[in-house]
């Protein structure tokens, strides 16, 4: 079966709709079938039009940087049923651990530049493995950074990916771009997985199978016929 390619993290600037449209058209041209746009309510009308024009399936996504555990729990309670993908940007250890053990979180993202704030260690990997949250890796910093900064980032990513593979944590490779020039073909983006120790198949899964599985799982949960995992409403009966 032909692979479906997904980029779950394309940042569109609502104030620059021309660039935003250019990115979407290019994503379609490069072979993406689904695209995740964070906080897309600012572009709601446009996104529907672009979806119709290009045939791209937009995935609603929200990114959040919680201050503490309570803040994260409150946020999840409020938004879990409204968005298909919830990504938590972990800025401290407390929220990183809480996000990893909460089943409502889909993606864990860590800051690329501040290495002290990358909390994906053994404990984090174990927790996320139990709760099916995936580790998201943005490739934009790899394209933008140079020299020692990129070397340091690659070293961190190699360590994190090795842990993720060991504990069977799904890995999602996204672009994290806001400019057209950084958008890459899905297979080219997957090839960058080699730099942090992913094999060819694992890299391709990180841009297709893994994100598709997350989107499908959440769409099923958000559908009106969903009752509980494994149980869904096929047909309604008459009220007596």
């Amino acid at each position, binding site marked *: 079966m032909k692979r479906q390619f997904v980029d779950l993290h394309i940042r569109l600037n609502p104030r620059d709709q021309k660039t935003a449209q250019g990115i979407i058209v290019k994503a379609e041209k*490069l072979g993406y079938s689904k695209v995740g746009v964070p906080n897309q309510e600012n572009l709601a009308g446009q996104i529907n039009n672009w979806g119709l024009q290009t045939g791209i399936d937009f995935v609603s996504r929200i990114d959040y940087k919680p201050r503490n555990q309570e803040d994260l729990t409150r946020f999840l309670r409020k938004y879990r049923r409204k968005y298909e993908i919830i990504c938590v940007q972990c800025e401290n250890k407390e929220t990183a651990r809480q996000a990893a053990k909460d089943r409502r979180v889909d993606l864990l993202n860590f800051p690329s530049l501040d290495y002290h704030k990358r909390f994906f260690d053994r404990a984090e990997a174990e927790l996320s493995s139990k709760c099916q949250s995936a580790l998201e890796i943005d490739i934009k910093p*790899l*394209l*933008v950074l*140079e020299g020692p900064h990129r070397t340091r980032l690659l070293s961190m990513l190699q360590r994190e990916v090795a842990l993720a593979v060991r504990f069977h944590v799904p890995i999602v490779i996204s672009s994290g771009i806001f400019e057209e*020039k*950084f*958008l*890459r*073909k899905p*297979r*080219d*983006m997957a*090839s*960058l997985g*080699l*730099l942090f120790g992913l094999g*060819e198949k694992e890299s391709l899964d990180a841009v297709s199978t893994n994100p598709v599985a997350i989107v499908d799982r959440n769409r099923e949960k958000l559908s009106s016929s969903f009752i509980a995992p494994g149980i869904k409403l096929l047909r309604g009966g008459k009220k007596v």
Partner: protein
Amino acid sequence: MKRTKRRYLALQLEVESIPSEREIMDSIWAAVTRLFGEVGASLTGLAMIKFNVERRIVVIRTSLVSLLSVRASLASIVSIAGSDASVYVLAISGTLKALYARIE
């Protein structure tokens, strides 16, 4: 001696101004060297085969063992000769004949 297996790659360039063949190869070599070092780059056996200026398609050759490294390096290119650029792999093949058939 065992023959080295090679792969030919057709690349689509997206650049503001058209670079020369030398500038393209320099940026590819620079990208490979940055990511894999001089020893890694020396194992790739990179060579320019053809540059179609009108269609902005470049055909290069590399050894099969370093195909993945070269592909990752190509994805990391963000500028050629000082202007913004993106490089996309259009097709990969073991023979030039098959490669040209695929990009025609």
